[in-house]
């Protein structure tokens, strides 16, 4: 994002809206710290500027800066997935797609959440730790695949190292017995990461909204607990009879 200096009246109203804290006073006008800016567009969408001085920067869709936009602006459709959002459809449509089967477990690693964002150098710490533990099963349509240079080492593409994103979701699908080692790896790498990430576990339910005991036991054995609120697929979606293109 950028603020046109010749228009800005220095009222500062836009500054609190920026999730990155990237808007600051440069003498008497507001300016955007390009290093900090996530290109999320919140300042522009707020329509708070009385003189329309806020604009999208012309370079916002240039690679690799475009990554900031794709992973930070919920309205931006990711070029790889065609989905607006940080990951894929994960559990939301599982009743129609059955992507996570009865013996599977999905794991989502939401880097930068809540609220803080993360630079790609820190994200690479996670991808490298996962690769080192032999975990390379990132969901095929997940946009993380587009950032990875070598899935065996977990190295990200070097040109991305200067970028940062508000949130990106790495999604993995494994068989239930493989959940433990992944949680262990995440617990270890969390000590090295200079930001935050959230871990989600996606599993099919047993009748009566019962979480499978095997999954619960694994989570507890690895020293994790789950929050009392969760996202639940209500089981009324279904696939069309005719296959879509």
């Amino acid at each position, binding site marked *: 994002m950028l603020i046109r200096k010749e228009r800005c009246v220095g009222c500062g109203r836009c500054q*609190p809206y920026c*999730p990155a804290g990237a808007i600051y006073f440069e003498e008497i006008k507001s300016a955007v710290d390009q290093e900090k800016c996530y290109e999320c567009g919140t300042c522009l*969408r707020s329509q708070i500027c009385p003189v329309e001085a806020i604009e999208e920067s012309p370079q916002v869709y240039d690679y690799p800066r475009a990554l900031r936009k794709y992973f930070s602006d919920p309205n931006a459709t990711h070029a790889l997935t065609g989905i607006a959002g940080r990951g894929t459809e994960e559990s939301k449509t599982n009743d129609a797609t059955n992507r996570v089967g009865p013996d599977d477990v999905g794991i989502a690693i939401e880097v930068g959440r809540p*609220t803080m964002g993360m630079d790609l150098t820190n994200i690479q710490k996670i991808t490298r730790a996962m690769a080192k533990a032999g975990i390379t099963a990132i969901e095929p349509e997940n946009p993380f695949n587009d950032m990875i240079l070598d899935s065996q080492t977990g190295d990200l593409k070097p040109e991305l190292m200067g970028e940062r994103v508000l949130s990106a979701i790495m999604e993995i699908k494994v068989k239930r017995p493989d959940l433990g080692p992944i949680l262990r790896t995440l617990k270890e790498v969390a000590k090295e990461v200079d930001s935050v990430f959230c871990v989600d576990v996606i599993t099919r339910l047993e009748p009566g*909204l019962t979480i499978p005991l095997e999954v619960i036991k694994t989570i507890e054995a690895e020293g994790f607990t789950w929050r009392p*609120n969760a996202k639940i697929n*209500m*089981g009324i979606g279904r696939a069309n009879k005719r296959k879509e*293109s």
Partner: protein
Amino acid sequence: MTHSLHREGPIDLLEREYVLFVYPARGFNYEGSEPKIRRLAELIYTQKPANMLVSTLRKNLYSGVKPEEWFASIKDGAKVYCVFNNREQLKKALTRIKEKDEGISIMVSGLIDRVREIAAEAGLHPHTINLSLGIQGNKDRLPPPDIRQFTTMCGHGMVSPKLVRDVIRRIKTGKLDFWEGSIILASPCTCGIVNPYRSAEMLKDLIPLYTVNQL
């Protein structure tokens, strides 16, 4: 879109709040979903959610948008996002959605125990759960919990901690009332799931605890 999964706050507030999504599946029931999504959006609107929007016109309930504009914008693959203020409203909405039988996926975010009860009462059989195992990493860098209970209502992180503090300051100095402040806090969320009723309640609790140095 795990962005409704990590809402923080006291259990008595979480207990009264349920996020509901209507979500067609790309490659499975996406094509031809337009009229189904429109019918579901209309149904949800009549159940008086605390906030709402459709993905094809990302203007929330308090933006001045007319519901007819939302419904007219809907096309194949559109999603509907909303948040309800109590379990009875959610139950009524789910019961009617079930009766419609449009075949589109419905997600509910809320306290697991409460959603279990509501699903049973509505005759639904939940299929999949997404559990949050909480925050990992350098948590010292996070904003404090009293600010996070506002910011995590938008899981995409669009509600800045600075905006929460700014709204607190403006209420404290008499420039805004609680409801006006809550509407401002709901505005950056482009999914329409920040609940201004809950924000207003939390602001009332929080305001006496803050001091401001600028009148």
